[in-house]
């Protein structure tokens, strides 16, 4: 079904995608760049760059903590977008998706927002609280600006799945389970049926996120979906090194990389 490349041609793969999520500025903007490099090294195909928000409705405690650390470091939507050229400069080549709640975008203004994305070279955008029905104008503007607007479908999206999937751009974010982001012990079997259904309609790769936190999960999902999105687990790996990062950065980053490889091997 997958017919075309995306992200301004930068994503050519349509299988076995690894899409990690980090929060810009967690714990500092500089370290976000380091993590991005390690993630790319570990095979990341797209980077979700999260913008920290005061009221992250869709996120569990792990990402809430990361957002708090990032806000404390002074991060904002504007600064997160401006981090993209710095990522490029340091060698991050994979497409970057700006992940942000809607309110900061609204305050910036749609025009300014898309102008900034273009100017700074971000290839995609994901707004977790801007569902299909509320996003028509926004999607149009994204398309006009050649920015991929990432849509989400959930197990209870029901008859809306087709509608959402058919219009998907970049990749389709398949929420594996009801609930907020966060690690989970079990992946339900039903999620596989759900993925199959989504794939029927999606013109773009179907990536699965929410709760993917072990190598077993990764392997299970890979067998059915076109990609995995990993957020909370990666943030937890970062969190584990927070002390280390202050003392011996390289060693800490190496430990992070090792754990990361274990996760996505």
């Amino acid at each position, binding site marked *: 079904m997958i017919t075309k490349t995306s992200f301004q041609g930068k994503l050519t793969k349509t299988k076995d995608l690894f899409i990690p999520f980090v929060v810009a500025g967690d714990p500092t903007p500089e370290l976000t760049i380091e993590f991005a490099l390690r993630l790319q090294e570990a095979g990341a195909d797209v980077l979700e760059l999260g913008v920290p*928000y*005061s*009221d*992250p*409705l*869709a*996120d*569990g*405690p792990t990402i*809430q903590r990361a957002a708090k650390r990032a*806000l404390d470091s002074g991060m*904002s*939507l*504007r600064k997160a977008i401006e981090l993209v050229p710095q990522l490029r400069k340091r060698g991050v080549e994979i497409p970057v998706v700006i992940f942000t*709640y*809607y*309110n*900061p*975008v*609204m*305050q*910036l203004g749609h025009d300014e927002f898309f102008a900034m994305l273009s100017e700074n070279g971000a290839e995609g955008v994901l707004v*977790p*609280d*801007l*569902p*299909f*029905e*509320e996003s028509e104008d926004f999607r149009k503007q994204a398309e006009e600006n050649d920015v991929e607007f990432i849509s*989400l*479908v*959930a197990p*209870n*999206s*029901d008859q*809306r799945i087709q509608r*959402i999937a058919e219009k998907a751009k970049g990749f389709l974010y398949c*929420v594996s389970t*009801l*609930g*907020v982001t966060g690690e989970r012990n079990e992946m339900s079997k039903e999620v596989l049926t759900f993925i199959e259904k989504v794939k029927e309609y999606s013109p773009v790769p179907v990536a699965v996120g929410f709760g993917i936190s072990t190598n077993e999960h990764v392997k299970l999902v890979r067998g059915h979906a076109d990609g995995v999105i990993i957020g909370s687990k990666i943030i937890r790996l970062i969190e584990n090194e927070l002390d280390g990062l202050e003392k011996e950065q390289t060693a800490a980053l190496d430990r992070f990389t090792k754990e990361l490889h274990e996760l996505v091997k």
Partner: protein
Amino acid sequence: GRFGDFGGKYVPETLMGPLQELEDALNEAMDDPQFIEEYHHVLEEYGGRPTALSFAGQLTKQLDGAKIYLKREDLNHTGAHKLNNAIGQALLAKRMGKEKIIAETGAGQHGVASATVAAKFGLACKVFMGEEDIRRQELNVFRMKLLGAEVIPVSSGNGTLKDATNEAIRYWVANCEDHFYLIGSVVGPHPYPKMVRNFQRVIGDESKRQFLEVEDRLPNRIYACVGGGSNAMGMFYPFLEDDAELVGVEAAGKGIDTPEHAATLSKGTPGVIHGSLTYLMQDENGQITEPYSISAGLDYPGIGPEHAQLFQSKRVRYEAVTDQEALDALKLLTETEGIIPAIESAHALAQAFKEAGGMDKEDTILINLSGRGDKDMATLMQRLEEEV
């Protein structure tokens, strides 16, 4: 799902299904005369409606201006208008076959109302409450537990209402299949603002009928306090097409020129909060800021989207009243009428009192007394002990 530019459903995809399910059930219920009848029956037989419309004779005399009437929502079971909505939603939850409800609460009033209807209708009830609020509102926490509800402490953010609401929504996202989320005000994603307004419009409908009976005309001005704004929407809605001047009163806290206030319309800007596009208090980066008011019920950084529309269209005039002005009004009403109002309601009183003297003696004022002050005694003791 819009009120002009405002409202909508700015929620994670996972909630779109549940919200549609809710909307369908709601529409069906509101079209079912039996449901409407049951709702009104419970309001009357259990909640104590109709609430009185009291003429404040001593107060009118003292202010020497317009005739002042009070709509006595303080006489509702559990002491505030909150119950009207909780009854409506609990009945809807039962109709939808949801045996578990969740609710957010700040000071605990909506939590108590939710725990109350949960007990009454045999539903399980989880109330999300910020840790800081739990500490400040020990008595209401106990009350909810006594009613059989589980109080879930929320430590994220500052541990207040905004965070409790976030957490309730998050919990709902994960448990929407068998849980009904009972929102306490005209906020949140569609269809909540409309639903809650419809469950609260009984205030305005009753007031209109009662006022016509007593005065054979409509009031010249109607005042109601606005936090999330459910008591005000419930009061105003049936009067929107009439001539009555409508005045919503926000909390100016320590002053709208200080950072410590909760005057969302007066000082906020449009944005998205708790799933709805409306006015809110935020910083230049779109991060939601923490509001302040002496009144725990007005201490909310957003406001119902229908208010945002009424503000924009200027159909309702919005004013802001400081802590001190509200306290002074509370004292005045207490001393002249023997009614201790909730500090929330005292904001509406304060604005009305400011204006009443300048009005004609033939004019009439209707103030929505949204709740009683019993819950505020600890705060009042702290602030007023030396004065009384």
